[in-house]
């Protein structure tokens, strides 16, 4: 968007805008994480606006953003662009459910972040398979009973709404960086405590992503959304 003879070239403007002072420590982990999400289009408009405001005020954030953008463009985007350009599968074979709606972060905003995390969690770290049977997501609600409460490290009990008696649950827990924290199957209660050992290397303040798979006595399976709970 600039001409070669233009002294205020795009490159110069970009370099000036995103050069951090050499002495700066850079943003904290939460901000670094937020920038990555923003670059990936996983923020709400409000979050994006707030981050951009901070970027204008704090040069070290601009530098981190530039890094995130560059790595996303070089490493991640080629795969996503290939997916976008792929011909859609035949209409009659589209499976409705989480796999179709998590792809629309622009519409869903913050919900999309959790939904995309859910998709990632399901794709990257599948939990133990308690048995065969069709997956049903529409009739049993597996809700997070923790609300906004933070998890104590020595008593990290996850709770969800129980399905009918005899249901067997499996649980998958990861960090928000999708590093596996714990997986377990064969749980008969609608709660499970993450072993303290599994949390040893997880820093305080980490957002834990967790989901529940339920197998009813008749063999049908249900899965929850992905819940986000902060580890204290």
């Amino acid at each position, binding site marked *: 968007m600039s001409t070669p003879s233009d002294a205020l070239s795009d490159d*110069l403007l970009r370099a*000036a*805008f995103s050069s951090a*002072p050499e*002495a700066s420590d850079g943003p904290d982990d939460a901000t670094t994480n937020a920038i990555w999400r923003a670059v990936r289009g996983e923020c709400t408009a409000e979050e994006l606006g707030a981050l*951009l405001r901070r970027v204008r005020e704090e040069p070290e954030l601009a530098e981190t953003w*530039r890094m995130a953008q560059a790595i996303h463009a070089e490493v991640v985007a080629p795969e996503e662009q290939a997916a976008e350009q792929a011909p859609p599968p035949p209409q009659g074979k589209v499976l409705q459910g989480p796999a179709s709606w998590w792809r629309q972060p622009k519409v869903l905003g913050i919900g999309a972040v959790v939904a995309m995390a859910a998709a990632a969690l399901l*794709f*990257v770290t599948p939990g133990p398979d308690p048995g065969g049977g069709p997956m049903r997501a529409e009739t049993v609600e597996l809700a997070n009973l923790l609300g906004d409460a933070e998890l104590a490290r020595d008593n990290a009990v996850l709770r969800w709404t129980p399905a009918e008696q005899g249901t067997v649950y499996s649980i998958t827990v990861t960090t928000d960086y999708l590093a*596996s924290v714990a997986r377990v199957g064969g749980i008969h209660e609608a709660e499970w405590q993450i072993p303290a050992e599994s949390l040893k290397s997880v820093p305080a303040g980490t957002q834990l992503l967790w989901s529940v798979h339920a197998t009813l006595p008749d063999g049908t399976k249900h899965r929850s959304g992905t819940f986000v709970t902060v580890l204290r």
Partner: protein
Amino acid sequence: MTARSREVPLSAPARGIAPLPRVLDELRPPLLAAVRRAAPGWLQGEVDDLTQVAMLRLNRALEKDPERELTRAYLGRIAYTTVIDEIRRRRKEREHAAPDAEPEREATCAPDPERLAGSAGLRTDINACLGRAQQRVRDALTLYLLGHSVPEIAALLKHTRKTAENIVYRGLGALRTCLKAKGHTP
């Protein structure tokens, strides 16, 4: 096993998605390009080392969880955080270095203080000029100055590509006019 030789378990790619490299080392060229493009000027001489550190840490993360199915998004995120951490670490090292230690790169590519001062002043003036723009122009230009392309800006700000192009093109024109008025002339 080193980062150069590690075999990455390959999950069945979805329709149309390029399969992930079988060897982790194949991620090195795009990562190196990304680091080269984004590393701060004072680290430009060390992008090879930075990339190698990121590759090693990526390899370590994969060894911790060898059953993990991989996506480029996951690898990209790990690479991003490791490079950021490495930059932080090197900044701290430089801060704590002996004051009389001669920086290795100083003779060849140390930043010119006048140019640095000019950049800092230019950034201040860019911000002042952006402050006068409408919100949507301000946000679009901020993204552009952060290195995003027009299609990326359109996607992030939920504009059509044409609208984003108009906003950025006109916005840059106004920004240059504003900067020239502040003394940033050829």
